[in-house]
């Protein structure tokens, strides 16, 4: 387990071509802007990006698509970035759509050692095709598998020196669960405070889930 405070570019050097990368955020709120920017600059390629959406065309995660760094997407809502449908239709990328709640639960499942779980979501729809189904108490459920990643790029508001994290408003979204689900979790934070500064009751992500903390350069 790597655990230290480091510069954004050094943090990004832990990503390899072909990695499965989770990125926190919902729309343009709560995604780690500078980590994504650095990843775009790095030119790392054949990435599988696991995220709620892909930002907007050429903005945020959209940049990685413009740069041809993406091999596959796993996520749930790409209508905010029409480039995605174009790239998919032309066969440039693979896309796996997962209902948002199943997506969130599958990420958490990976983090907590649950390989698969049953959910009522998508039962009877096209998105459950080919999946195992099972009836509990007369209702049909779909078996969904955990979603793992090599690296998670997350955004938090404040970290202490160990990597305990707190978040800011709706920028929280997928960040705490992605922190749990990757082999290496890199957190971009606005501020790093001394150990013991954060109230133990207020910590949202315990440092056990965070490997690298990197401070945002431009606030």
């Amino acid at each position: 387990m790597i655990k230290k405070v480091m510069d954004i570019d050094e943090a990004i050097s832990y990503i390899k071509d072909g990695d499965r990368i989770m990125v926190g955020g919902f729309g343009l709120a709560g995604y780690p802007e500078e980590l994504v920017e650095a990843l775009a600059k790095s030119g790392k390629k054949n990435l599988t990006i696991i995220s709620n959406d892909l930002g907007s065309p050429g903005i945020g995660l959209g940049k990685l698509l413009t740069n041809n760094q993406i091999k596959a997407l796993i996520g749930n809502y790409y209508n905010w970035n029409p480039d995605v449908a174009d790239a998919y239709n032309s066969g440039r990328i693979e896309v796996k759509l997962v209902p948002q709640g199943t997506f969130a639960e599958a990420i958490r499942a990976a983090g907590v050692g649950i390989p698969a779980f049953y959910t009522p979501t998508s039962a009877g729809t096209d998105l459950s095709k080919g999946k195992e189904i099972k009836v509990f108490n007369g209702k049909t459920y779909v078996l969904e598998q955990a979603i793992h990643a090599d690296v998670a790029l997350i955004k938090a508001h404040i970290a202490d020196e160990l990597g305990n994290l707190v978040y800011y408003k709706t920028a929280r979204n997928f960040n705490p669960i992605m922190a749990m689900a990757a082999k290496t979790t890199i957190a971009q934070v606005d501020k790093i405070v001394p150990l013991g500064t954060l109230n133990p009751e207020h910590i949202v992500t315990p440092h056990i889930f965070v490997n690298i903390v990197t401070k945002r350069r431009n606030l």
Partner: protein
Amino acid sequence: MEIISKEKARIRIAKRIAQEFNEAKEIKIINLGVGIPTMVANYINNNNIYIQSENGMLGVGPLAEESEIDRQLINAGRQPVTETPGCCYFDSATSFGMIRGGHIDATVIGAFEIDQEGNIANWIIPNGKQLGVGGAMDLVTGAKKVIVAMRHNQNGKPKILKKCKLPITGLGELDMLVTELAVFFFDGQLILEEIAPEIDIDTLKKLTEAEFKISPNLKKINV
């Protein structure tokens, strides 16, 4: 050709759904989709109603005015919003835990099509230009009450069908359907509860492909 203008239709639908919530004597937690559903909030005047947004907030306030905008405080439609007293934030797994776990009293969503078996189609029109499902499938499965807000027809074509043609979002999950022309409850079949003052039942039947029953207590929509 249009019985009611688009703008009037949207407002009527939003107001009629708000009526449901304005009657609540106990606390209710609701989730509002994008479009007409978001407009419902403008007509709610009951302190018992709390809005949940699936991107991780309970107690969503009105849309933010220019001076209040915080790009890290948005609703699921990516619009900047405000806080209400007692609001709180949580991660996406907890948010959909609330939804899937049956803790949301009602969800208001738009739809492309509805059918007489209570199926809802609202996540995709297969045309190669769309690639997204969002939280729609979780919401229709999980919310205690699923209220669909939509225009009765689309450019003269029926949207309330015998059988959905578009890929469905969930199986028989509809509880209530509000259009500018009618209010239906669904209980194994569509039941017409209210009708617009501008039309009669024969006109409504012509504009509706689905079979429906007529409630013995049929009323006029009154908003």
